[in-house]
Each structure stands twice: as C-alpha cells, then as structure tokens.
C-alpha cells in the first residue's frame, strides 16, 4: 500500500483539484434542496413572485453542479487511469529484468491475470474508491448539518433506518466478498477443466469420452451456478435494502414530520427539503459498503502485484567500465555443478542423489576464436551448459568465465551483448520479418538485414512471401514452418553480431543439407569469433576445434573429431549412427 501511495502522490495536484471539484459538487447538491424548500414555502405562503427567482437559482446551481461534477469525475477517474498506466509500465519494466526461475514459478496465464484484473482493481481503488471516500463523509456532514438545523429530533428519527442499513451493508460486504471470491475460484476451476480436457483432446476422442467430459463439465458448472446464486442472494438484497431504508426513512419523516407540520412547528417546504436530503444520503450510504469492498479488493490486488515488484531481478554489477569494449571470446566452465532443484550456492539438490544433478563437475575451456561442439543424448545437459553462459541460470557450484571473468561479475547487458544465442525453440514476435531479424539491434540498416537473411538461407522463402521482408509473422510465428522460424532466428543472431556465437541445436527442424549450407555461410560471416554449437547431429560438428560428449551431466569424452573417432567411444558410436540416420533420411 505504501508503494501505491507513492504513485498517488505523483498526482497530488490533480487529485487536489479533483477533490476541490468534488467538494463544490457536494455543496451545490446540498444547496438545491434549500432552494426547493424556499420555493415551496413561498408557494404555500402565496408569495408566488419569489418562485421564479428560486427556480432560476436552482437552474444556475444545477448547471454549475453539472460542470464541477463533470470535472471532478473526469479528473479523479483519469488520475486512476494514469496510475494504472504508471503501474503497468513499472511492472513491465520489472518483468523485463526477472530471470527464468521467476517465470517457472509464475506462469504466463497467472501473470496476465495480474496485469489485467489486479491492475483494474487497483485502478478502481484510486479512482472510484477515492471519489466515494471523499463524497460519503462530505454528504453526511452537509446533510446532517442542514437537517439538524431544520429539526434535530426529526433528523435522529429519520436516520435510524440508515443506521440499520449501514450496519447491514457492513455485514453484507463481508459475505459479499467471501462469496464473490468463491465464485472467482469456481470460475478458475472451470478454466482449468477446459484447459485440461482440450489439452488431452486426442485421448478423449480416442476413448469416445466426449460425453463423459461434458457430463463432468456440467457437474462443475452446477457448483459454479450454486455459488453464483449464493452470491446473487446477497447481492440482490443490496439494492432493495437501500431503497427500503430510504423509503422507511421517508415514511418516518412523513409521519413524524407531517405531525410537526399539522402542529405548525415546521413548514411544508422544510419537510420536502428534509426528504430531499434523506434521498441524497441513500447513495453515499450504499457506497460505504462498496468502498469497503473496493478497498479490500484493491489491497489484495496490490499484494499480488507486489509479488512482481518484489521479485528479485538477476543481481548484476553495474557497468564499471572494467569490462573491455572488445570481447576476445575466451570461455570457461570451471568445476560447474548444476541442479534445477537447488538454489545457486547451496547443495540442496544433493540429497536427491545423483539424479538431481543436471551437470556434474564440468570443466571446459574454449580459446578465443575456437569452435566448441557439444553433443550428447536428450537430457544429457547440453542446453543447461549453454544457459549458464548467458546467466539465464547460475551454477549451483563452480564458475563460468568469459574472458577470464566470472559472468556474475559482468554487467548483464554487456554479457548478453557479447554472447549471442540461437535457442532451441525459435521465438518470433508478431511483427514484420525484417523487425524480427533486426530484433537484437533495432536500428540495423536494411542492407544488413538482407545480408543476414541471405546467410540464413531465407532468400527462397522470402520470395515466396507476398510482402517479402515486410510480411507480418502471425501470433507466435504461427504462419511459418519450424525450419523457417529457426532460420529467421539464425538471421537474427547474424544482425546481432555478438563476440561469442552460441547455437543451441538451432537447426533441428531444418534438413541436413540446408543445415550444412546455413552453417557454412554462418561460419564465414562469424569467422574469428568463438563459437559454441550444440547439436544432436554429429556430422555438423566434425570441424570443431574441440568436441565434448556429455552423458548424464558429465563430460564423457573430449577431443577433436579425429581423436574421438580413434577412441571408438561414445562419440564414434554417435557419429556412426548419425551418418546412417542421414543416409536414411535422404533415401
């Protein structure tokens, strides 16, 4: 909440003017019943000449009220919008700094709901919430003052139903919150059910269980319905309760006030004015309940947003200038251990036995300009090794060095600017191909983008596309084939032009021939750079200066292609199978 107050404080001037307008609105709203009273009294006393004057005053007050009310609502609600805007920007900025382990914990769907629903709740609190927070006491203050000035006892008597209403709403608000949370939970269950059933649609269909699935779905829908109606039972009481209280109060005024009028202890105009005030109090009284629930929801939402605000970004030293402009590209993994189940620096994964270690005591050294190849079966730890290099994850024990410096001591942006990765899973954004290729350096000249596209073997594909480079890629790159997407990501790396090039099985969906061609041109354009190539295809790595075979997180063999072939070990076996597989594929 303190955090939110800082945002509110940013707009204090606008809030102040908005509140001023709100006060003016309330004042004018309170003046109008007085004018009505005077007019009616004048009518009753047959002073008709004075009536038009009052009528004009009422019109003037009404118009003035219209303007200030308009201003007050616009200003305060728009402050809410601005705070939402600021919060959303800041949240996104924070999200940009958070590491993959955060995104493991909070899934995209969850984050989206926080960024949409919870932000809305917070906006409601600082918009409508603040408006009612000002309005309600103000109305009460004014109305009570005027009413007491008219008749103290009548005021007390007529407010009794409002007291009851207030207490009732206070209690209802709690039940209301509780039940609407329940409804939200049930809705979440419905979503999860749809998600699960559709994700497994193939099994559902194969076992002709569609009807069963629908029946199960119907069941949870019934629970949801029941919860919703439980909510409706409470919610439905709210409006009639308010109206009932207002009407009962009016009745009391009518009887008791009427009695006073017949006794000539009160004028008819006073009575009507009195009733108008009571009417004015109905809404603010209701708002009390809303205020409570808006506040509670906003507070809960702010807490959920705090999860994002307070998530620790990857700690990185600031750019101290010690990191040279030119990166030579020496890489070293030094006694690196890694477990996905342990936090860095602890040995927490050890009690699970050896299976929990994704990497065990890995030592690899790459000289500047060398090409390192990492091969091994699925799950051997190849990708883990690469992720350590860009600090997407951190070693549980040991160090990863670039140019002799621990990557944890290097400013993150500098590190990632120097080490470029083409990940296994190609990620494209819904934007033009040109912008996807120039993703790493948005200002890249067109010629450079085109050169990269040529080097990545995209020319033929581009020619087949209606708008060439300016073709928009669909949601998650849906309109491109797997191989095309991978080549776009290779082109992206080429425009990024990093000192160290890392290919994490980046061309798995491309046929062998194309892969060879792409790797060849790629090799030409990054000549002299250090290169790390992860591949399940042995044939693409034979020219590497150093080949490392990973098995269950351990370096099983290392050496050049010739050395390893001579050893007739795991690599030789892998390579032989690979050649056969390629032969098969080209059948």
């Amino acid at each position: 909440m303190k955090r939110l107050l800082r945002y509110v404080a940013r707009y204090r001037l606008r809030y102040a003017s908005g509140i001023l307008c709100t006060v003016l609105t309330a004042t004018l709203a309170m003046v109008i019943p007085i004018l009505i009273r005077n007019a009616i009294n004048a009518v009753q006393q047959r002073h008709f000449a004075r009536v038009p004057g009052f009528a004009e005053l009422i019109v003037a007050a009404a118009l003035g009220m219209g303007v200030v009310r308009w201003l007050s609502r616009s200003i305060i609600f728009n402050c809410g919008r601005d705070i939402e805007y600021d919060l959303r920007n800041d949240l996104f900025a924070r999200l940009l700094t958070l590491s993959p382990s955060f995104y493991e914990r909070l899934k995209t769907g969850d984050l989206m709901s926080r960024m949409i629903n919870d932000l809305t709740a917070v906006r409601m609190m600082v918009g409508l919430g603040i408006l009612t927070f000002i309005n309600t006491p103000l109305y009460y203050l004014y109305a009570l003052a005027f009413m007491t000035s008219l008749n103290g006892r009548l005021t007390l008597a007529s407010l009794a139903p409002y007291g009851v209403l207030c207490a009732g709403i206070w209690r209802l608000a709690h039940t209301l919150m509780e039940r609407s949370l329940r409804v939200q939970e049930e809705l979440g269950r419905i979503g999860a059910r749809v998600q699960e059933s559709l994700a497994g649609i193939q099994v559902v269909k194969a076992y002709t269980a569609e009807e069963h699935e629908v029946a199960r779905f119907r069941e949870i829908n019934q629970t949801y319905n029941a919860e919703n109606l439980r909510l409706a039972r409470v919610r439905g009481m709210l409006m009639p309760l308010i109206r009932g209280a207002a009407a009962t109060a009016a009745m009391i005024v009518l009887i008791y006030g009427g009695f006073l009028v017949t006794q000539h202890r009160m004028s008819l105009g006073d009575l009507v004015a009195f009733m108008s005030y009571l009417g004015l109090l109905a809404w603010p009284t209701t708002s009390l309940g809303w205020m409570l629930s808006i506040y509670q929801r906003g507070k809960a939402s702010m807490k959920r947003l705090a999860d994002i605000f307070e998530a620790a970004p990857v700690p990185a030293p600031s750019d101290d200038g010690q990191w040279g402009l030119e990166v030579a590209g020496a890489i070293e993994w030094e006694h690196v251990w890694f477990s996905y189940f342990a936090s860095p620096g602890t040995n927490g994964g050890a009690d699970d036995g050896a299976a929990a270690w994704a990497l065990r005591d890995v030592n690899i050294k790459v000289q500047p300009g060398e090409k390192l190849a990492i091969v091994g079966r699925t799950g051997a730890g190849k990708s883990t090794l690469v992720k350590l290099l860009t600090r997407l994850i951190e070693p549980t024990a040991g160090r990863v060095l670039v140019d002799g410096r621990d990557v944890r001591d290097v400013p993150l942006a500098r590190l990632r600017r120097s080490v470029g990765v083409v990940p296994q899973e190609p990620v494209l954004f819904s934007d033009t191909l040109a912008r996807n290729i120039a993703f790493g350096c948005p200002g890249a000249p067109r010629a450079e983008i085109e050169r990269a596209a040529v080097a990545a073997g995209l020319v033929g594909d581009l020619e087949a596309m209606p708008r060439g480079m300016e073709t928009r890629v669909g949601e998650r790159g849906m309109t491109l084939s797997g191989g095309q997407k991978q080549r776009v990501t290779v082109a992206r790396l080429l425009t990024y032009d990093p000192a160290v090039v890392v290919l994490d099985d980046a061309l798995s969906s491309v046929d062998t021939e194309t892969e060879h061609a792409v790797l060849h041109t790629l090799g030409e354009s990054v000549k002299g750079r250090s290169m790390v190539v992860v591949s399940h295809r042995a044939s693409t790595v034979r020219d590497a200066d150093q080949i490392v075979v990973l098995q269950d997180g351990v370096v099983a063999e290392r050496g050049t292609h010739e050395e390893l072939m001579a050893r007739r070990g795991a690599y030789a076996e892998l390579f032989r199978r690979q050649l056969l597989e390629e032969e098969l594929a080209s059948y």
Partner: protein
Amino acid sequence: MGCALAQPYLVKLTIDLFLSGTAHAPAPYFDPLLRLAGGHGLLMMGFCYLLMVAGEFTTFYGQYYLTMAVAQYSLSDLRIALFARLERLPLAFFDSTPVGRLVSRSTTDIDAINEMFNAGSLTILVDLLTLAGIVAIMFALNAHLALWSLCAIPPLLVIINLFRVRARALYREIRDRLAALNAYLSEALSGMAVIQLFTHEAESGREFELLNRRSRDIQRTANIYEAGLFSSVEALSSVTVALILWAGGGEVVRAMIGIGTLVAFIEYAQKFFFPLRDISTKYTVLQSALAATERIKDLMEEVPEAAGAPQRAAPRAALGSTRGEIVFDQVSFAYRPGEPVLRDISFIVEPGRKVAVVGATGSGKTTIIKLLARFYDVTSGRILVDGRDVRAWDLRELRRAIGLVQQDVMLFSGSVGDNLRMGRTGLDDRALMRALERSQALTFVRGLPHGLEEEVIERGANLSAGQRQLLAFARALAYDAPILVMDEATSSVDSETERLLQLALEELLADRTALVVAHRLSTIERADRILVLSKGILRESGTHRELLAQGGLYRRLFEVQYAPPGTGIEPSAA
C-alpha cells in the same frame, strides 16, 4: 415497480389530505378511507407507505434473483454447449488454435455476459417501463405540469444520442487498443528469455509503453465522455425540478392543483432521472457482453467432426464382433496442402495380426495411427476397417473398436479409477482391478495410499513415467477394443519397470489386431510383420528376419535405433 411508482402518490395524498390544510378538497372517493382512519390518518398513511416499501423490496429482490437464476442457468447451458462443441471439433482445429484462447472463451467471455445481468443492464427494459409509468402518472395527475416536466427530455435525448454515436466508435477503439496491449504483453512474457538474451529490454519497454499510452489515452477520453453524460443527466434532473416549481407554483397559487401534487411531481421527476444516471456504465458492460457474444458465436459456428454415416440399412455389427481387419489403400495425406506426410501407402493387417511400424523421425509413423482413428481424413485413397471405409463408420463406433495408447501418456485430474474408466461408468472396480492386474499395474496401485481412489494431479505429475505407462496399458485393457493402436513411448525406464511393461504389452497384444509404432527392439521382434517408412513412403515390409537379411533400409535403421548400444561396435557386428 408499481410499488415504487405509487410512493410519491401516497406522499401527495398525505400532504393534500392531512398536511396542506388548504381548501383543496379531497376527491369524494377518499371519504370512506378518511372515516376509517379517523383521527389516525397520518399513521394510516404511514402504514400504507410501509406496505409499499415492503412490496418494492420483495418484488425487486424477486426480480433480481429470478433474473440472476435464469441468467445463470442459461449461461451455464451456453458454456456447456460451447464445451460440448469444442469436444467435438476435429483435431485440425486444435492444431491451429491455442488452448488458452479457448479457455478464455469459455470463462472470461461468458463472464462478460454474466456481468451484463449482474450490472442490471437487462433492467434497462424495466427502467423503460418505469419511465413510461412515471410519465403516465404525471399526465394523469396534471397534463400541463407533466408537459413542463418533460421539457428536459429533448436535450437529454440529444445528449444521450451524442454519447451513443461517439461511444460506439470509442468503445470499439478501446477494445482494439486493449487487445493489442494484452497481446503484446502475453507475447513478451512467453518470449522473455529471447528479449533478455538479445538485450532488447529497453526497446520492448518503449514499445510496451507506447501501447500502454495509446490504451490509456483512449480510456481517458471515454472517462471524460462518461462523466459528461452522468453529470448532464444529474443537472437536467435539477433543472426539471426548477421548471416544475416555476410552472407548478403558479398553478398552486391559482388553486388549480394542490401543493401535494407539486411535491409529488418533484419526487417523480427525481425518480425519472434515477435509472438514467448510470446508463453509461450499463452501456459499457453491454458493449463488452456483445463483443463476447460475437466471439462465442464464431466458435459455435466451427464445423464439428463429421459423425460418419452409420449404415443403418446394413445390419450393424455388434461391437464385440468387429474382426479387426485394417486395410490402407493407396493412402496419401498432408496436414498442409503441398506438404505430403504420407504418400500412396498400402498395406493390410489381417485380424489378430501384430504389425510394427518403424522409420526415422518425421517419416509419418504417428500420422498412420491418427488417420486410422480418423482424427484426420485422408487426402486421397481410403482406409478400411473390417472392409468398411472409416468415413462410412459411425465415428463413435469406430473409435470404440480402437484402443489407443499414446506416446506421452495423458492422465486427467480425478482418481486413478476415473482415468481407467474414461467415463464408462458400467465398469466396476473388479473389472478395473483385473485390467490393472493384467497390465502389471496392480502392485503399484495397491501401494498408493488410496488405491483406485488415489487422486491424480493434472497430467499425472504425481506418478513416475513408468507408472503412467502402465496405467495407459491398463486403460486400454479396460477399454477392451478389438484393435489396438499404440505409439510406443521412447522414454527410458528402469529395468524392473521395463520388465513389467514387457509383460503388460504381451497381455495387451493377445487376441487383438495391433498396429504399433515401435521404439523397442522387443516389440519389433514380437511383430508378425514390420512396415518400414521413410519420408512418408512405405519402403519395405516383412518379418524382422526377412528384412535384416534383405540388408536394406530396415537393416540400417535397426543398426541406428534398435541395436543395443555398444562402444565401437562395427555396423556389421550388430
């Protein structure tokens, strides 16, 4: 509604009869009432008023609750209908539509419609009736004054119309900009690693800020419009009161109406503007409900899987009597036009025979299985089961004749028993136990704290890979279809589980026609015949021995994928 309308009239009567003290004589038909009330006229009126209030409470509550109940039940029907439709859409639909989007259709979008009921947007009708009622009563009371009261209506209509015209475009724009913002956010969140790796954070931040600003700006404009509408309605309400006082005051003085009538008019005028106050809120809710309806409608119009033509003319074979013969006759298939996955595949599996399909990754093995279960329709050629084209089968009957074991075992949340039954409530625990026993899964299921009733967490995360496979076998055994189709799992399991899987597979294959995409040597060796696929073409076919002797593609494939891994074994030695 009637009760609410009558209240101001009661106020008028009270004032005219008891309070005004003027010579304005009450109508004669009130005489009995007055006599009845005697000296307690005021109390009597108060009592009537209370009755009216209670009436309003009851009717309003009843109306709200009934509306909600009807809304809930019809929305729930809609949701179930939507879900049922989704369940029947062809697999091709799910290939191109992210599940997340479908989830939001069946939750968020239907919720938007629900919100419309909640916010009382449907009470617009009631509101209109109330308005008409008020106007009628005012005219009945005094036509002249009623006309004056309605002076504010034309400007009000002009304002509302202005708002409506502007608002429609505005709200559409809001929706579009918000959708763009959220789409960007969702994409950035799922591609966060790439953004960070390419140090694109600053640029992404800027782009997001721009979208965020565009969304904010339009919402600010909308706020200003909404506040304007709200305020003008409020202002016009007070102006109307002034008009009534000005016009009515004179009439009271001229004794043409009672002062009570005047007060009643003021009250009616205020009540008149009451429902108009939050018309803008209701309008927003209504708009998003309409948009949601549109999206749901689009989904409901997707074409479901063809149910197939049950040939009622021919005597329908009872399920048990399916012989289980499978014929692929010159089958070609492409997921995307121009990219054939299977080309001209022909083979026959005689009833009771076991056929293994082998081939490199991407050779089209799994597609054969999907075509047989008619998840997709062939592009050309035909597939016959028991001599009948699968497209001529009743879809449900066809799938009842085929038991499927997938490579990645899909388990659903629910108990172990539920996962075995897959909706066939007729299967008792005994039958399940037998299936578990035959699939070698009984021991581990008995070992679970709640046995058959053990809850499976979504996707079976609380079970090991081997246990999930055993359960998949048990599920197929319980399904007891004459044809078994299996995509063998590639994941390796410990040797004990492997032994159990072998035993279970033997049970599963017994007395059944089987088509298995094989990854294990033992499975291949057990097959009566082996089909060798490469790039969607059927290259070789024969028994393990025959094919090895041929020394062709199978021989090589065998060496690559199935020969026990050794170090430095020469190909010929395998």
